[in-house]
């Protein structure tokens, strides 16, 4: 590490003399294959040194180092916890000047060093996307992409989509962060929790109108906060109530009724016309309250201890998704299947799905862990790809694509649902 940093300083000097107009930046590696745990530790230390030495400057590519450190840290955190922690002291140059003083830096390790770390193909791709984003953001080098991406099974959208407009609340905001890390340009339209006003939708519609149809995609998660409710004494359902800064369910937890879902979809659809002609991914309600209710107070979320509670919630999520698919899928629109995306086995039995979903939730039983959002981000990209592919299918004259099959336009000569071509 010391030798590496000293050599780095030599290179800075060398480049400065030979290419005075160029800017030397530390390039984060995209590890190929297995690496030792101790090397991972050194990489983290090197990232620290770079961030310290280039602090406040515009030498860029910081996000690629951040992504790499995050990736390594996550892998490390799965290792054995060390007791007590070990402190390593590494002497590192205090500046980029040749011959600058060495300053001891202390690094604390709370986990045993893992013998080996494997960086998967997908993780390499993720690092590549972050690099791509950093080059665009820090240096204005847009459109740069390794042509390897296709070979590495990157969704094809990477080549076609430059900007993703994400409309939703906290779940979309967190997923947007991951997509940004992956190098996508993301425009966020944040909705107020549990309140969508006509004025708000009109403002969003205006924003969607300004998108370039060719290289943009829209991701809509409008109904997540409106779909999880509690049952009132009269049998109707109500939205969670905010008490002392937190939302609570004052009775048995349930999914929104079918008629309400349809009404919500039709009202929002009529207001969001700006996105027509643009690849659109609809996100049906992402599962919530699977592990438990809004809190541990027994007066709230009163049915969470019922034997079949989890299964009923899953069935509810599936049913609402079916309505979404029926109402919205087709043309350039794709409806995600959150259960499949999050568990990779949405078609498995409910119990299996529940056991896989469980660890993906935070303590509030509403928000997902980072892994959960990463899966959601990947699912959204896959959805965009599928939507693009679907829109490229040329249909026989007079037919339009609907999620449930081919349909002829209604009219004197048109029938209802036609047979597949």
């Amino acid at each position, binding site marked *: 590490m010391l030798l590496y940093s000293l050599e780095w300083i030599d290179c800075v000097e060398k480049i400065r003399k030979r290419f005075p107009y160029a800017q030397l930046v530390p390039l984060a590696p995209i*590890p190929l294959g297995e690496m030792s745990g101790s090397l991972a530790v050194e990489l983290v230390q090197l990232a620290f040194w770079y961030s310290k030495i280039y602090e406040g400057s515009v030498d860029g590519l910081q996000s690629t180092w951040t992504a790499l450190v995050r990736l390594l840290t996550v892998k490390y955190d799965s290792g054995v916890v060390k007791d007590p922690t070990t402190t390593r002291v590494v002497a590192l140059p205090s500046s980029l000047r040749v011959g600058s003083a060495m300053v001891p830096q202390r690094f604390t390790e709370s986990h045993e060093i893992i013998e080996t770390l494997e960086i998967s193909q997908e993780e390499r791709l993720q690092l590549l996307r972050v690099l791509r984003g950093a080059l665009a953001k820090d240096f204005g080098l847009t459109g740069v992409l390794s042509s390897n991406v296709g070979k590495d099974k990157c969704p094809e959208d990477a080549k076609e989509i430059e900007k993703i407009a994400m409309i939703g609340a906290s779940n979309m905001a967190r997923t947007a962060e991951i997509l940004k890390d992956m190098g996508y340009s993301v425009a966020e339209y944040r909705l107020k929790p549990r309140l969508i006003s006509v004025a708000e939708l009109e403002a969003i519609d205006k924003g969607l109108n300004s998108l370039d149809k060719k290289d943009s995609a829209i991701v809509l998660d409008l109904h997540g906060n409106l779909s999880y409710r509690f049952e009132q004494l009269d049998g109707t359902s109500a939205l969670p109530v905010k008490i002392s800064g937190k939302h609570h369910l004052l009775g048995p937890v349930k999914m929104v009724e079918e008629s309400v879902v349809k009404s919500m979809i039709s009202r929002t659809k009529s207001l969001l016309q700006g996105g027509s002609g643009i690849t659109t991914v609809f996100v049906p309600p992402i599962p919530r309250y699977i592990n438990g209710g809004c809190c541990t107070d027994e007066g709230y979320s009163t049915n969470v201890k019922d034997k079949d509670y989890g299964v009923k919630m899953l069935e509810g999520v599936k049913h609402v998704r079916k309505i979404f698919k029926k109402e919205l899928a087709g043309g350039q629109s794709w409806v995600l299947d959150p259960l499949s995306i999050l568990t990779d086995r949405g078609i498995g039995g409910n119990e299996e799905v529940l056991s896989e979903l469980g660890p993906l939730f935070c303590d509030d039983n509403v928000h997902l862990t980072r892994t959960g959002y990463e899966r959601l981000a990947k699912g959204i990209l896959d959805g965009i790809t599928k939507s693009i592919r679907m829109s490229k299918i040329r249909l026989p004259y007079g037919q339009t694509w609907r999620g449930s099959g081919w349909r002829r336009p209604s009219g004197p000569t048109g029938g209802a649902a036609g047979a597949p071509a």
Partner: protein
Amino acid sequence: MEFNPDGTSEAEAMHWLFGPDEEMTGSTKEGETRETREVALPKEETNQDEAGTTTQPGEKSLNEMYYRCRAAKETQSKTKNIELGDRMTVGQEIESSEIGIRGKFEDVKDTLRDCFMGSRIKDREKTVNQNVSMSVDPRMRRCIVCENNHDVMTGDKRSKGFLLTDQHSYEKMCGDSTCLTVIRIEDGGLLELTGLLEEIVGSARMESETIIGLGSLSYLAKVGTTCYCTA
């Protein structure tokens, strides 16, 4: 490293840079000559590599020189001295088994198909044992991985960035409008990489706002484990 010190042409000065079917001569030991080689193999042939593995049509095979340089470089990794520019020489013996990263060009050889690839034992009088992969033809300084086949140093499509790295990075980074030049040396050091850039750029001028990304994970693995103390 001074470019073209003896007044020879650029192509001659880049004596190690080999195009398809080009043969050069050099020296492995003082007074001895050896053959030099090329690595850019035909794209649609069935070949047998050093390990005797038959490759499929379109798959790139690496030739004997690649394996020779790689083996020599791995032996170099055991050296006790590590040069830090002209200022100092420090280091310690490192067993190759301690080097903490796997992955070589050989592991991604199918991705090298469109790249310029080559090997050299010596750079003039200095033993270097370099296996390189580049997105540019170093003799002509033209990009060979994108459709534009543009000059990387001049013109509207000139490269706005040079990535100097080892095998732990992608071999090309190009898009519709922008292209980065990727220069890689297998298990290359930082000074080795900057030296190679100087050699390729030669006397040409690098425009302002050009970025040079530099990093080598294999080199960190090689020198990184020294100079520690534990509290």
